[in-house]
């Protein structure tokens, strides 16, 4: 696998709108079969990057390669290989679910039989088989999102690009969509996803890239990133009556990197969680405090992202 060329490769992509430079030279490789997340603050250029990838936008300089084929020069071929689901959904509200799929399938140059067959499979995949004759505008938000994904996949793309797929959805629907994305990926489709809900990215993506200041400042698996930038685990403990200053004084500080109070909990960061946890519980006991809640976790992606984008070393 190591000698295989990158599935998708951005080479020094630059893009500006007027005088405003959005992308300052993006270099990024997306391997085959990944669920690849691109995270960045609003306006960082995530959507611009995706639009360049699908050939909707042209870069001012640089190249994008898909399987060594230049995306910017072979738009038509590449569009047959890519599926794109935009944030707002992109289908005809006045057409039924099936009619939408047939329409976009035909535009992709598929044969009628292939469309029928593919639609049935897709509708089963996205859970819209029972709603195939319902007009797009009459679907619920979650169903619309699933229809949009189905439309993006009608031509069986090798790469599915999802721009903020869970935007405006309630937590239950988000969960459904994330599960669907995983299911799609498991069938062999490479997923590229952007979202500002970093917990979702963290939960679903196998790899992520952090886009900031017009550049990719970091790439890697979420766990690797957290491990790379955050060596400490966190112990969160809540006690009664909660004299955290007294408890803190009794802990052995040898392995403690940082200690603070967050939302009525004492948070202790340490590279040696076993030793400090023992000390902490001993200190609680000696202070006659009663433990209400205790948990051990690594820092979230959001915390890593915040730290990264603020240029802080953790």
């Amino acid at each position, binding site marked *: 696998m190591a000698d295989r060329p990158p599935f998708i490769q951005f080479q020094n992509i630059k893009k500006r709108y007027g005088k405003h430079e959005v992308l300052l030279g993006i270099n990024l490789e997306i391997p085959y079969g990944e669920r690849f997340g691109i995270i960045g603050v609003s306006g960082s250029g995530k959507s611009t990057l995706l*639009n360049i990838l*699908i*050939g*909707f*936008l042209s870069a001012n300089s640089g190249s994008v390669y898909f399987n060594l084929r230049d995306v910017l020069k072979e*738009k*038509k*071929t590449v*569009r*047959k290989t*890519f599926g*794109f689901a*935009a944030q*707002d*959904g*992109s*289908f*005809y*509200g006045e057409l039924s679910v099936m009619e*939408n799929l047939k329409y*976009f399938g035909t*535009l*992709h*140059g598929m044969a009628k039989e292939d469309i029928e067959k593919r639609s049935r499979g897709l509708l089963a995949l996205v859970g819209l088989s029972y709603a195939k004759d319902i007009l797009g505008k009459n679907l619920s938000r979650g169903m619309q999102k699933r229809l949009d994904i189905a*439309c*993006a996949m009608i031509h069986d793309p090798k790469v599915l690009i999802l721009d903020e797929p869970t935007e405006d959805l309630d937590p239950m629907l988000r969960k459904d969509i994330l599960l669907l994305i995983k299911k799609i990926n498991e069938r062999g489709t490479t997923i590229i996803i952007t979202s500002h809900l970093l917990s979702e990215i963290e939960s679903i993506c196998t790899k992520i890239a952090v886009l900031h200041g017009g550049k990719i400042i970091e790439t890697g698996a979420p766990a690797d990133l957290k491990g790379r930038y955050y060596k400490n685990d966190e112990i969160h403990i809540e006690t009664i*009556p*909660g*004299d*955290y*200053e007294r408890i*803190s*004084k009794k802990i052995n*500080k040898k392995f*403690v990197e*940082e*200690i*603070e*109070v*967050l*939302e*009525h909990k004492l948070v202790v960061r340490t590279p040696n969680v076993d030793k400090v946890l023992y000390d902490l519980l001993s200190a609680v006991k000696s202070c006659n405090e009663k433990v209400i809640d205790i948990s051990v976790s690594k820092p979230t992606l959001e*915390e890593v992202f*915040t*730290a990264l984008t603020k240029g*802080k070393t*953790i």
Partner: protein
Amino acid sequence: MGIKDLIKNPYADLVKTPLKTPPAKKAEKDEEKPIPVPKPYDEAPELSDIAATHTKIRFSPLVKLFTMIQKDIKLLLRSKSSSLIVIFGPLLVIFLVGMAFNTSSMYDLRIATYSDSYSELSNSIINHLKDDQYSTFKTESLEDCIDGVNLGKFHACAVFSSGMAIGNKAQNIIEIHVDESRINIAHMIELSIQKKVSAETAKISKGLTGNIVTTMFNTRDVLTEKQGVISKLASSTSDSILKVSGVSEDLGKIDLAYNKSDINYTNVERKADAIKAKINGTAGCGSLLEAEEFEEFEESINYLKTGVQTVINKFDSVINTRDSSVQDLDSLKQILITGTDDLMVLKNTLTALVAGIEGVEVTDVESIVSPVTTNVKSVAAKKTHLGYLFPTFIILIVMFMSLLFSTTITMKEKLSKAFFRNFIMPTSDFLFMIGGYLTNIFIVAVQLTILFAAAVFFLPEIREVMLPMLGVLLIVTTVFVLLGMFIGFIFKSEETATLGAISIGSLMLFFSNAILPIETLPVGIRDIAKYNPFVLSVNILKRIMLFGANFTDSFSSISLEVYMLLCFVAIFFVLAFVAREITKSRMR
């Protein structure tokens, strides 16, 4: 390392609670400070107190309404296309329409003329036709002249009969061929030309009448002058009559009557013979002349003498009468000689007057009153009003249907959620354009099918020209559909796009022959208006329907307009395509 040193809070900006103030302690501190207790409802401030803190607004519904209207206007004005349509649209329309129609004249009417042989009179009328409004063109043949009207090259064709001349009314006929299908201008042109011809013929009439009147006046003057002679003749005739009467009376009075016994010389001769015989003795020797006998003889002589004297007296009287009458007759003779001279003069004068009157060339009243006759003929076969109006009516419907449908459909597509996806399909933009175009063509075709099905009932003759008509309608629909698509792509909202389509359609309608003839437009504007796709389309359809033009043998009669429409197709396709690309770039 103290606890404070250990406490590093990298999220200080997110977490406000410091470690050194644990909740328990904080609770104690909180106890030191009196916790504000919510006031019971009975201590709640009165509504009037709250109201007192604000300026009281009377008629608040009106204020709200005003605010709503203000907001709506702001929204409207801040949308460039909306404000353009709302404010500048009506301004532009009234400016253009006002500038174009603020006149009662017609401009640049082109009159073709033809005659087998132009005469002085026909040339004079043609020259009279030329002015600021009219320009005239002599054609080589009658066909060129009439076909020119058919093709819309000329507004009218005036055919002058050969050998037109003043007084030759039978030959002085002008046939004016106009396109009756241009209902709102045909009669204006007819009247206008007739007015021009009438002006010229009135001039001729004036000349002819002038001649007669001059002759009349001359006759009157001569006769007036000769009235003295006639009076003198009358007077001398009266004198003559008197004189003749006098002579007649005198002659009548002559008395030549006498008694034969008064001058009975037989008795005297007998007595003289008796005496003579006595003297000569012949009467018996010795008869002596007796005195008695002599006295008797003398008495007889005296008697005869008296009788002769009486006759002599009467002759004297006759001589006198004769002398007097001769004198009178001499005088009468003189009068008659003078009168004869005068009569000769009069005769000459009258001969001259008759010659003058006979010198008036045109004496036919009809020729004087109307020296030239104009006949109006239609170049197209006689149709009903619907027949004439049908081309305009069809194009009007096609224009608005195509414009509005294509604008609406384009706008719906543009505002559709799926519009973006179309751009990332492996399908060319050109194909999308063609798809949109064909959709609109199909819808308009359905409408036209219904329309024609009904129209055939009223105008069965359109079946004969159905094929070329459909060919033209396809081109015309294409022009307006592409224009509508362009409008749909450049406007941002469906409402403003619809308003834009209606405004552009209305402008094309105003600057056509449908309401007022474009000949009423000033030349500059008219030069532009004649390239109006609506005008071109109506012209083509009219020629097909009324003059039997088609795409094969008589294509030349509509070729120019057809090529122009095809140019519009190309222009609007490019514009619509560019507008679509701009829309695409706005989405990026």
